[in-house]
């Protein structure tokens, strides 16, 4: 064993340690981000799963007048969802709006990054209207936006 060998060995070990530490830190950060995103995915799913039972329960208690048409029923659904969906977890944004057709509610939930899900809910699919076609509205109402105060 001579000095040159010791120097080469130390340099090799230092370089490997530095590279491994960088890769490890990046991987740990990516794993943490994945964990946060996975939690957000579950929370968004919970919001969507809650939406249909919420409308059914509200309709069982006090359904809107079926004669008022699907546009009015869609607005009723929007209000029920607005007031009844579970509280928004940190880092998520929810937007409830009437779709362009005027007869559907659009539920959009987004988290940071590209995580974004949208579903359309039609009152006729819940038996709240639709026995006769109602005239479509020209444009959508102002969306109701909600956002939690914390970031993801």
């Amino acid at each position, binding site marked *: *064993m*001579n000095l040159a*060998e*010791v120097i*080469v*060995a*130390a340099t*090799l*070990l230092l*370089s*490997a*340690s530095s*590279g*491994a*530490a960088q*890769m*490890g830190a*990046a*991987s*740990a950060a*990516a*794993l943490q981000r*994945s964990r946060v*995103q*996975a939690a957000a*995915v579950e929370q*968004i*799913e919970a919001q*969507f799963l809650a939406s*249909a039972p919420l409308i*059914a329960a509200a309709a069982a208690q006090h359904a809107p007048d*079926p004669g008022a048409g*699907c546009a009015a029923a869609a607005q009723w659904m929007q209000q029920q969802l607005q007031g009844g969906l579970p509280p928004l977890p940190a880092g998520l944004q929810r937007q409830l709006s009437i779709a362009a057709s005027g*007869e*559907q509610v659009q539920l959009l939930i987004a988290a940071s990054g590209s*995580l974004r*899900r*949208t*579903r*359309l*809910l*039609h*009152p*006729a*699919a*819940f*038996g709240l209207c*639709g*026995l*006769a*076609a109602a005239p479509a509205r020209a444009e959508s109402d102002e969306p109701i936006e909600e956002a939690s105060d914390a970031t993801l």
Partner: protein
Amino acid sequence: MVCRASSWFRRCSAPRPGHVRAAERGFALPIAVAGALVLLLGSSSLQLLSLQNRAQLHRVVQRQQIEDLLASAAQQTAAALQQTGGGCLLAKAHDAWAHAAAECAIEPQVLKDLQQGQVGSSRYRLTAYQPDGHGIEASSAQLELQLLAERPWRAAYRLALVPSSDGQAALQITAVQEQGLRGAGA
């Protein structure tokens, strides 16, 4: 003189010219190489794990977005079935719709439009509809939709049906329940 241990005896031989003596070769470099390999392998494994996690999460989100598209399509289709011909087609199987259209006073073009639609930029078509009973005795129906995309995902839904509340001999949808994706086959 270099001695090597074997299971029964020690053999000793004189070092050949050009060979470095074992004692002189040192152990720092082999240990450093081994240590570096262990470190790099460990960090590579961690990176592989994080990449796998990310890919799995991406697949889950993609699948959920497909489910969202088809669930929205199911809501639209259910509403269209309810609103077209006073819900007359709700009591009839998909195979019988062509014959039932006249009976239900539904134009051929309307019937065609009923069996396909669009959610956002994604198009879909109705592939199956089967009530569980005859006429207004049916209490539910199976609806199957398929995306018209590169991967033609299909999903099934159960429509809960009750006799219409307006006094007519027709059915009315009260709920659309998801039954999950049914693959991406044609």
